[in-house]
């Protein structure tokens, strides 16, 4: 099994009508897609909006997704195209123009933009990074190495077990304990 196995399973569940599984895909990829879109769309609030549009487009296109490529590769292409279309539409309309679907939606977008573009949110991002990296530094070496090999180097449990000369079950446990320790510090930051 691999990371793409989880995605494949989630995609199949969505295709069979389980909308909640799409939420897991959103939670998994939202930060990566926002970062990707931010390379094209400089304004942070616009980047969030474009990222949302990309996810929605992906959901609508999921019946046509056959799994020939990895889900993230497919989503990545949709996000880039959405960002490029956004730039094209910006060049065609007056600078102050905004989304104009319905009053309700306009309000939602404005609320979301307020959430995102505030200095508090940027501060929160910095704080999250600092907290996670600090918690990582304090981890016992075997836990830190295990989670780094997994998250940064993308090794499978089997490869990590070989590299660290330990059973796969130990790798699984070490990675979990590392995450749990970091999460213990992270969780209070995200509780509003």
């Amino acid at each position, binding site marked *: 099994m691999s990371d793409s196995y989880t995605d494949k399973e989630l995609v199949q569940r969505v295709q069979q009508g389980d909308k909640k599984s799409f939420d897991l895909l959103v939670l998994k990829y939202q930060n990566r897609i926002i970062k990707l879109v931010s390379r094209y769309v400089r304004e942070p609030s616009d980047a969030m909006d474009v990222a949302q549009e990309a996810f929605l487009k992906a959901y609508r296109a999921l019946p046509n997704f*056959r799994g020939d490529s990895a889900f993230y590769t497919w989503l990545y292409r949709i996000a880039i195209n959405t960002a490029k279309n956004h730039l094209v539409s910006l060049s065609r309309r007056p600078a102050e123009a905004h989304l104009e679907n319905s009053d309700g939606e306009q309000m939602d977008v404005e609320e979301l933009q307020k959430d995102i573009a505030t200095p508090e949110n940027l501060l929160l991002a910095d704080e999250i990074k600092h907290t996670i990296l600090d918690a990582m530094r304090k981890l016992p070496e075997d836990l830190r190495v295990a989670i780094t090999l997994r998250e940064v180097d993308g090794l499978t449990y089997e490869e990590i077990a070989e590299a660290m000369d330990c059973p796969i079950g130990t790798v699984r446990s070490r990675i979990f304990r590392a995450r749990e320790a970091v999460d213990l510090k992270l969780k209070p930051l995200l509780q509003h």
Partner: protein
Amino acid sequence: MKTDHESLSAVVDGELDKSETKVLQSIAVDDRSRATWARYHLIGDVLRDSLTDVAPAAFSERLRTDVEQEPTMLLPRAVERPWLKPVAGFAIAASVAAIAVLGIQQNNIAPGLGDATELVADSPASLPAPVAVTVTDQQIAKAQEPLNPVSGSIQTQEPLNPASGSIQTQRRLNGYLVKFNEQRSSLGVPGVNPYVRIVGFESE
């Protein structure tokens, strides 16, 4: 439904045991597990330096609302057949090999059909012992039509050796072969032997 977080951690890595496939479902329906799922992925994003802005809770909440308003998909679950690709590949390879073998066999048969042509084209010195070819009167008469308006019944129990055969017989045979090949070509079908040039000659 409460999810064991060690299993959740394994799902994050796509390293779930087959006995734990229901964990994914339980994460999707449990708010706390879903929040843990999001935080575990956030940790990964920070470690990979994939974090610029943190998506606020409103980001996924709004998407959830939007998706709820979308029509529900009901596609049949794709049946996994991992063995199908290699088997299909093998079947195609076997078919190509079979066609190639048959083609080679056909080419081996073709020179036999083209013996007469070769015999006509070869020089007399290189010829083996004379070969007797039986050609019916009708065939000869038909072949002769454009070349020789005079037709008649001819006995062709003669060897094909141009040195020993009569010039008239050789001409007729040449005419027959050329005409036959032309007719086949005009129908889009290869002639007696499409890879051999038919050469006629006339001895004086």
